[in-house]
């Protein structure tokens, strides 16, 4: 039997996937209390070896990563009693004007800045359905936001929150998401209702994430044990030739 290291590489590739899986899960866990956070999932794929050898090598299938889609399932709503905390129940994202263009967020923890503009906690401007900043300088009347995102100051209608939905988004840090151009994201209609005085919790499920941690670790150990066994077999075949 000639030396055959191919299986070791297949196993090593599996080990890398287990580590990536741990990295993705630990980021989900780190953000278990981040409002509006959407968990990511590691999607894997299998790849046959290119046909560079005999047919038997078709037995080898490499586990490879494919992508990490954002799971946009609904998170729980918690009551905060802050007038400018909004949660979206349903689909879509709030639109925020940042120095690097318009980004989208599910984290509706907004404030009024010193000039009366509605901003998020990074100081970026929340946009209305016309794509304009929202300025409410009036401090005498209550701000009320209806389920469809229409903003009233007292009895005056001052516009509507922009809420957009996309077929695929990618995370862009600081609670922002952007349409995923690699997946040819298009805008799709959103069915939503806006809840004033609530924030959406992250949609990370602690129990599932713990299971994934266990899964990643044991999977890694299995690959390790198999590698060790293969190594021992190679050793044995080396020793056969000794006098």
């Amino acid at each position, binding site marked *: 039997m000639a030396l055959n290291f191919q299986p070791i590489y297949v196993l090593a590739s599996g080990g890398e996937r*287990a*580590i*990536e899986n*741990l*990295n*993705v*899960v*630990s*980021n989900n*866990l*780190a*953000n*278990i*209390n*981040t*409002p509006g*956070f959407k968990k*990511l999932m*590691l999607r894997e*794929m299998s*790849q*046959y070896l*290119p*046909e560079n050898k005999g047919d038997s090598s078709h037995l080898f299938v490499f586990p*490879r*990563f*494919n*992508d*990490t889609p954002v799971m946009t399932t609904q998170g729980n709503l918690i009551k905060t009693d*802050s007038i400018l905390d909004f949660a979206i129940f349903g689909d879509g994202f709030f639109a925020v004007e940042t120095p690097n263009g318009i980004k989208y967020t599910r984290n509706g*923890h907004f*404030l*009024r*800045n*010193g000039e*009366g503009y509605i901003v998020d*906690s*990074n100081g970026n401007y929340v946009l209305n359905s016309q794509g304009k900043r929202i300025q409410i300088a009036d*401090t*005498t*009347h209550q701000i009320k936001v209806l389920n469809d995102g229409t903003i009233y100051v007292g009895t005056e209608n001052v516009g509507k929150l922009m809420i957009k939905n996309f077929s695929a988004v990618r*995370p*862009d*840090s600081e*609670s922002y998401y952007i349409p995923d151009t*690699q*997946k040819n994201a298009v805008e799709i209609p959103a069915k939503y209702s806006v809840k004033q005085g609530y924030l959406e919790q992250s949609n990370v499920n*602690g129990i599932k*994430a*713990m299971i994934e*941690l*266990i899964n*990643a*670790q044991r999977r*890694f*150990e299995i690959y*390790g044990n198999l*590698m*060790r066994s293969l*190594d021992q077999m190679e050793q044995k075949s080396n020793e056969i030739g000794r006098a």
Partner: protein
Amino acid sequence: MIRALWTSASGMQAQQTNLDVISHNIANVNTVGFKRSRANFEDLIYQDIKDPGVMSSNETRVPSGIQIGLGVKLSDVSKIFTQGSLIKTDKQLDIAIQGEGFFKIELPGGGEAYTRAGNFQIDNEGYVVTPNGYRLSPNIQIASPETLISINISPNGKVYAVRNEGGQQTVEELTDIKLYKFINPAGLKAIGENLFVRTEASGDPIEGDPNTDGFGKLAQGFLEASNVNIVEEMVNLIVAQRAYEINSKGIITADEMLRTVGTLKS
């Protein structure tokens, strides 16, 4: 080393800050005019990992790359200015604000601060001051305490001193109490002693009379309790502790996987 170690560490750190904020709220559950804070978090940056790799001819799917997030960070700790409940004290100079607005206080050495805590007293010169001796602004001076029967404060900020002068009951009108509002009260900076100071974020104070234009009305003989809801804080405490614990499991898992690597070569 495995990135998850640091990712989970950032999660533990975030929960520690969360715990600090919650315990500060609980510590001030009986502080007059105290407003609770909430810690808010955001995710950190994501690393794009592309996999150029060779694809076989009979494999049509192409890996599009994965994004590995690096954890979590604190975005802000913001005060929540909801109304606290009113407690009847029957003290003449205990004033609670029902609704929006702050009292203005003169700091020693110049500068102004704002407070919701209306537990005032009279100092030796007759000025209305906070328990720390800082004067209420505009200053209210109540002279000759020997003839004073009572001080009456109306809901709209009028202050009257009722006196007994030689058997005659007289009513003297003193300086009005003004209230101050901010466009973004959450942007105020807390400096301790129940006081807040203005910042760029809060905007400039807007002066007004109590009980007009959306300013709150004054209630004499009442104090505003803190708006800390102890049950809610206890729940937050549980959530913070469990999140801390669960993130430590991420570190343990990464550690065990590194141990596996270490034992590959016997």
